[in-house]
Each structure stands twice: as C-alpha cells, then as structure tokens.
C-alpha cells in the first residue's frame, strides 16, 4: 500500500527499494487466472502440468510481474508514475499448496527487491531507474527486470 511520498531529491543511487514479501499459492494462481484471464492449466492442474516438462504446476510469469509492479508502485507513492517496466521469466517457481481454505501450507516465501541504478532529469521529467527482481526461497533470482519511474521533484 502506498504510504509516504518519495521525492526525486531524496533518492540515492545504490539505495534499495523497500522489499515486498509474497507467497505464491495454488489459491493465488486461481485468483490470478480469473482476474487476468490467463486460464492455462499449467498453472493449476497437476496432471496437465506433468505433460509440459516443467516439473509440476508453475506460478504464472505475469503474476510475478504483477508482484514487481506492486513493489514499484508501493515505493513511488500516489504522485509517482511508472514510465517503463520490463522483466524476464527466467526461472520457474512452484506455488505452495493450501493447508486450509485460507492458509498456505509450509514452503517457500518470495521476496521482491530492487536497487536504484540511476537518476536523471530529462525533458522536465525527474526519472529514477532501478533493477528489480523476484527472489525465491533459496535466494535465486527467477524474475529479473528493470523499471523507470517519474517522481515528483520535491524542490531542488
């Protein structure tokens, strides 16, 4: 959730974007399928997934993208805007099964992270660039990416 507004003048290259924690579950996969319209059974059907060479049902790449978008939009606040965003689905992630109707079973927790790589003023826009990624429970970066955001200047 967007909290305190971040300003261009306060951003330091090399600093970190506040980490966002996520748990991929089979339930989130189904919610995401309905909300996004991606009904590929690879993301919720064990038997189908077994024919796809992925080693089981895998988390939607676009769901991990949406986590990274949240990482960025939480950080930039209500007055920030995303100008560019990119990510690659390099490594597969496997959702936790559900323990109860609402609680995930034991397993991995994913961390969405970012570091600020550059800041510049271009055509009157105060731009900040960052590297972003999703880290799995073993510390592997399965979904690396980058973003360019426009921040309010906050004075000079």
């Amino acid at each position: 959730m967007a909290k305190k507004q971040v300003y261009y003048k306060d951003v330091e290259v090399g600093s970190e974007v506040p980490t966002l924690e996520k748990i991929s579950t089979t339930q989130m996969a189904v919610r995401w399928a309905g909300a996004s319209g991606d009904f590929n059974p690879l993301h919720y059907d064990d038997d189908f997934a077994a024919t796809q060479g992925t080693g089981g049902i895998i988390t939607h790449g676009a769901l991990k993208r949406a986590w990274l978008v949240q990482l960025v939009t939480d950080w930039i606040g209500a007055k920030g805007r995303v100008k560019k965003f990119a990510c690659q689905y390099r490594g597969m992630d496997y959702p936790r099964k559900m323990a109860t109707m609402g609680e995930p079973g034991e397993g991995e927790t994913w961390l969405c992270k970012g570091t600020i790589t550059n800041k510049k003023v271009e055509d009157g826009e105060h731009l900040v660039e960052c590297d972003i990624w999703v880290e799995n429970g073993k510390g592997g970066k399965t979904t690396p990416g980058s973003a360019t955001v426009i921040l309010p200047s906050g004075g000079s």
Partner: protein
Amino acid sequence: MADESIVTDEIKAMIGTLSEPIIMEVERGAIRRYADAVDDDNPLFHEVEDAKNAGYEDIICPPGFWGWPIKGRAAVGGLSMVGAVLVKAGLFRILDGGVDQEFYIPIRAGDTLTASTKIADIREREGKAGKMLFTTLETTYLNQNGDTVAVNRATVIAR
C-alpha cells in the same frame, strides 16, 4: 534434419503481420479484482476518492492491466497468427518469456482501449532441451481519444 533452422521462410514471412484491432473496456470491478488477486491494496486501484485526490478522474489500473482479459484477446490474437506454424515446426509447449512495457498515459476506469498486435520478431535459440522459438508480440494501446497510452512487448517461448 537436426541442424536446420526452425525459422523457415514461411515463419520469417510472418514478421510484421498485424492482428485485427481489439476493443477493451476498462471497468472498475475488473481493476479491483486484478489488484485483489495479487493482494495489492494500493488505494489508487481501489478507492475513487483517493484516485481523485491524486489528480485522476477515476481509479487507475496497475501498470500492465489493460482491461479484462489482459492478454486473452490481444495477445492470443497475435499468438494464433503463429499457432499453425508452431504446430508445423513440432513445437507444442508454450511458455511466457517476459515483457517490456512503456507507459505514456495512466489508464483509468471508464477508458476504452483499442489494441493492435504485431509480430515484431521471431528468432531461434538453442536451449538445454533443443531448439526454442522466441516470438515477440508488440501490442499498442490507444484510448478513446486516439492517444497512445502504452506499448507492450511480450515474448512467447515455444519448444
């Protein structure tokens, strides 16, 4: 033959192919459901008052949401253009490779978007399990005023 390119002339000729434009209506409920699916409680995606206070006419979309279904019609329209060829090339397993997006104007509830998808590139790569085909679909979204609001480049991997 094993070392022959899977990017045949027939496949190469498809680069540049354009899909029919697709109309997408952006609804409040669909935006909220999308944000909820990710557990994203950003008020700009949920509360009209908060969005107005931030200078928007209505709740806005998380970047990458273009109305429901987000990639159904526009991307599948593009993908179906290469579908027959993938089958000919013996590639049945499809994976999402990633995205590269540019956002020009925030998309808000009430917008009507027109999406046109082009096959921007088709190339081959050697993977651990053999040849893979990387197809990049470039979708341009215009709003009801004819302004370009965003461009989405999605890479589809077939193997």
